[in-house]
């Protein structure tokens, strides 16, 4: 039976299938590991968005990794509270996103105003210009919106604050 530290390291290999440069640990999706007295292992995860279709794949990948480590009884618990926030993303994760061509979330997610919050200034991940605009609040996945850069004219995804 592997110790929790080894398991945690192994789980760092589990990637988000939509954003393959980020691991579930980078994202803050992996919330905890618990070993019960009977030897079974519980993995606690939290979804980024409630309808995120990647969650199923993530669960499968976790089980695969743990089976390889010789774990026999694994349960995966989805915990909603505290709700996932982009604030949990590590700085390293934000840098990885940037390098991958996705603008990382800027500022904190504490924006409570639902109506007409001012548009965020987002840096273009390609040419680093701040001269960008939001094309659509909703993008290719639930967690992103679509931006375009006025300077290099490239469209890009922005990982929006939640």
């Amino acid at each position, binding site marked *: 039976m592997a110790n929790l530290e080894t398991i945690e390291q192994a789980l760092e290999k589990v990637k988000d299938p939509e954003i393959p440069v980020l691991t579930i640990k980078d994202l803050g999706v992996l919330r905890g590991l618990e070993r019960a007295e009977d030897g079974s292992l519980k993995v606690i995860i939290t*979804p980024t*968005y*409630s*309808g*995120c*279709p990647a969650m*199923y794949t993530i669960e499968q990948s976790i089980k695969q990794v743990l089976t390889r480590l010789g774990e026999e009884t694994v349960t995966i618990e989805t915990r*909603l*509270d*505290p*709700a*996932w*926030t982009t604030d949990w993303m590590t700085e390293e994760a934000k840098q990885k996103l940037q390098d991958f061509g996705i603008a990382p979330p800027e500022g904190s*997610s504490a*924006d*409570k105003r*639902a*109506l*007409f*919050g001012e548009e965020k200034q987002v840096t273009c991940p390609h040419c680093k210009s701040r001269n960008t605009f939001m*094309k*659509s*609040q*909703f*993008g*290719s996945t*639930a967690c992103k919106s*679509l931006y375009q850069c006025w300077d290099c004219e490239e469209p890009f995804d922005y990982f*929006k604050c*939640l």
Partner: protein
Amino acid sequence: MEQEKQKAALNLSLVMGDNALILGHRLSEWCGHGPILEQDIALSNIALDLIGQARLWLSHAGKLQGGKSEDDLAYHRDVFDFHNFQMVETPNGHWGKTLLRQFLYDAWHHAMLQKLVLAQDEDIAGIARKSLKEVNYHLRWSSEWVIRLGDGTEESAAKMQDAYADVWPYVGELLQKDFWLKELDQWIPGFTADEILAQWWKTVREVFSQANLPAEPMDWLYRKGHLGHHTEHLGFILAEMQFLPRAYPDATW
């Protein structure tokens, strides 16, 4: 008392879950048919959020009913067991109608969730906290569209008037202080039905004043979607949505 609380929690979960499920299904019908790609994607995203939230609410409702699953509730109930508002089951119509319906629902959804996050019931508060973050984005998007269309070209303004005539008569159901809404003030601190409704009116007046639409109460019919009384449309939705798990009960992904 404990039993009453449980009943209220079940009613609430079914109203929230069924509304999210049926509206999410309606919005999914736009997938591939949106006016432009970005907005097609936007609606599909919102549909996905709503279906995700429906899963959370219905899982909770199933637990309260003694171990039913979200799928039992979504696929194995008939029309009279659904608790959604009639408004969300109405056909999509044109883009303006879908957007106006969405906005009116988002405004209600947002006002509800803002209070539900305070519930002493940790399951309900947890689902509400998760959902509220997503609904913030829904409401912002639908508000902007209602204004853009209502205060846009002659044609878009005319279509919004047309949408208004279609959708506004269904609004009354969101504003009825019915049993399930009243039950909540017994156990959610600071929850009053009046406050939810006042918040709804505030959001709607703010947006409608810019969209050139009248936000006036009318003699609304007493609609009872939340009690299982539905329009003919819901049956067609269920026929499509439930076909597969009913015809092939062993089907899995």
